[in-house]
């Protein structure tokens, strides 16, 4: 793609702030150079689970590790981490991670997620990067529910210098989406990014509302939305799996934006999500400023899991 200049380096730079004990103890065990034993597997399990990879995927990884050991693809403890790293990295081939674009006309990105996951800020980041790369971006304030959500996105739009389509708080979000699509076409925007209200995937009405927004978009612009991003908070635990599942059922999620990866959480749940639902990660959020975004880089991500 090329427009997301801050990638691996920035990602690496922002990651890796404190997270001591687990990883250091793992590497100390690993330098012993013994064959696989239970204590070692325990340590490994602890690392993987502490990354929020989840018990199921962790078990699966350890099973594969055992198989590799039995078939002599790995011989000593020194081989374990490189084996797992390589194995996990392969979950996200490059073609999976690319932003999907419209063949012609505006590319539409629909953004959704549970409450407080980082949707609005992540939209500001996407809009910032895209517009800085000469793209014409319009954002749409379809969160008409939360107090001051429209104001929040308006402030970002102004700071970044992109256009915004908004209605009053309390109005129909699908109507905002409708107007935004018309504006995007009429003004020949390159990108239209739609913010939506945070909602829990268990709220049937709100999920239906989301489907409706998506349908309105599709009705206005053929093949849109081109990208449906689920914003996941990297501190989220196992619940992220069912979130991904339910949002996919409602709006056919095409990728994940993993926000708040600048903390100590490693966001390992995206491995389980890729494994079980085949949804790739496309971007990561690494701070609260518009420039704190990077394309998802499996290498950096995986290094951090074991750092």
């Amino acid at each position, binding site marked *: 793609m090329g427009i997301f200049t801050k990638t691996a380096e920035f990602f690496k730079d922002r990651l890796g*702030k*404190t*997270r001591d004990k687990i990883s250091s103890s793992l590497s100390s065990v690993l330098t012993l150079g013994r064959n696989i034993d239970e204590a070692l597997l325990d340590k490994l399990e*602890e690392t993987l*689970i*502490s*990354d*929020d990879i*989840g*018990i199921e995927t962790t078990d699966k990884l350890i099973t594969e590790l055992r198989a590799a050991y039995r078939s002599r693809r790995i011989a000593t403890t020194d081989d374990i981490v490189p084996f797992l790293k390589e194995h996990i990295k392969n979950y996200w081939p490059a073609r999976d991670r690319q932003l999907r674009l419209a063949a012609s006309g505006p590319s539409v990105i629909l953004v959704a997620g*549970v*409450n*407080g*996951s*980082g949707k609005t800020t992540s939209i500001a980041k996407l809009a910032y990067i895209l517009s800085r790369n000469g793209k014409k971006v319009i954002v749409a304030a379809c969160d008409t*529910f*939360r*107090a*001051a*959500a429209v*104001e*929040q996105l*308006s*402030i*970002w739009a102004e*700071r970044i210098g992109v256009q915004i389509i908004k209605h009053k*708080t309390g109005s129909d979000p699908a109507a905002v989406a409708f107007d935004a699509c018309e504006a995007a076409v009429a003004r020949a925007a390159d990108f239209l990014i739609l913010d939506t209200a945070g909602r*829990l*995937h*268990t709220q049937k009405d709100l999920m239906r509302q989301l489907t409706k927004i998506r349908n309105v978009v599709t009705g206005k612009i053929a093949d849109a939305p081109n990208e449906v991003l689920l914003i996941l*908070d990297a*501190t*989220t*635990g*196992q*619940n*992220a799996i*069912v979130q991904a599942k339910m949002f996919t059922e409602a709006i056919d999620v095409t990728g994940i934006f993993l926000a*708040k990866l*600048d*903390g*100590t*959480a490693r966001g390992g*749940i995206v491995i389980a999500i890729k494994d079980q639902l085949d949804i790739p990660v496309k971007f990561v959020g690494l701070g*609260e400023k518009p420039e704190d975004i990077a394309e998802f880089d499996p290498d950096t991500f995986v290094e951090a899991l074991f750092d």
Partner: protein
Amino acid sequence: MFESLTEKFNAVFKSLSGRGRITEANVSDAMRDVRKALLEADVSYNVVKKFCKDVSEAAIGAEVIKSLHPGQLLIKIVNDELTKLMGPVDSNIYFVSPGPTVIMLAGLQGCGKTTTAAKLGKYLVAKGKRPLLVADDLQRPAAIEQLIILGQQADIDVYSEDSKNSVKVAKRAVTHAQKNGYDVVVLDTAGRLHIDEDMMTEISNVAKAVEPHQIYLVCDSMTGQDAVNSAKEFNERLELDGVILTKLDGDARGGAALSVKAVTGKPIKFIGVGEKLDKLEEFHPDRMAGRILGMGDVVTLVEKAQEQFDAEEAEKLQRKMAKGSFGFDDFLKQTKAIKKMGGMKDMLKMMPGLGGKLGDMDFDDGQLKQIEAIAHSMTPRERREPDIIDSSRRRRIAAGSGTQPNDVSGLVKTFRRSRDMMKALSGGSFGGLKSLFSGGFNMDTLTAAMSAGRKIKQRSKRKRKIIRRGKIKRR
């Protein structure tokens, strides 16, 4: 920590023998399930590890009633222990006088602080307070606006300033509250990462400046393993007073509740169960335990089986009483049960028809202890057949229990009397219970008579059951 667990357990199943015990082998499957359930619920890896180890150690050797599998019982024990670990219930907000009481909310980005501030405001108004909300998140775009709107919705005043200095805003807000007669100040703060040194320093400076009376950590219930890291750091920097768990209206299992409680030791005060401002509830450890463990079926099954068992035991005892063969052994069991239930006074309050009469009755659980001491100094046969206690036995028992021989004879006498009374009563019903007291109060009689009410049990749900049973018997 788990001493009382085994004790509780033994008390429930004491008189049963040969019906199986919890062993390392027969619960290992169940323990594996428990471990998996806790990890799937996002309880911190290390918390799970310690918890599972402690529970299995404490549970080993426990007796299992016939209709249950040891593994099932273990799950019930786990459930009870989780409840205990997340308790006790403490939703009190401690107010200072003169006010205003200053409450500060802190937490990671997007966890729900602003919404919770407004919810708390509403809750305080319902408690008859006059709160002031303070918009001290000067970072997030439109954060001030958000709180102002929420304040309007809830009809609560909001203090805000166009400033970049959160310490000054907080200070001036408290002064404003003092001058204008607000009793509580609820301080919303910016979300921050626990490893963001500048931001953590900022919030500790705010805390130093206004010295909040209560600092609550707001924590998203969907949080995974990282919950321990952030909670620990916030607690170290701010000395938290409590935790508020948000977004429990979803289907996250909420293991963070246990993790956060384990690393901070601070009570979970409230839970957020929706975006609307009335969606703040008091925290219930038992419900949270059930949610985290997710094995409600097994827990219910075990409760039913135990109830059934209790009923059988009660019947057995009743038969004994009817035959007049109720001995001190049975009596001891009952006193133990009474103690578990929170002492005589609490117990009596729950007896149908008695609650109101208690006001003017004066009595003391110390008497129970003396009775127990005496009974414990008897030989098994003496406990079974108190009638054989003669003067030399009496002296021996008195010496053994640190009492006087006439304490012993007094007890034996009232015991005998109440046994006879029970014999008469048990043919009929406990409707006669009230009449027992009309002519005066005799504790021993009461103790013994009550015993038919039954057995162990610790929590209020149990207490209700006991009352129900009392009613059944009266029919």
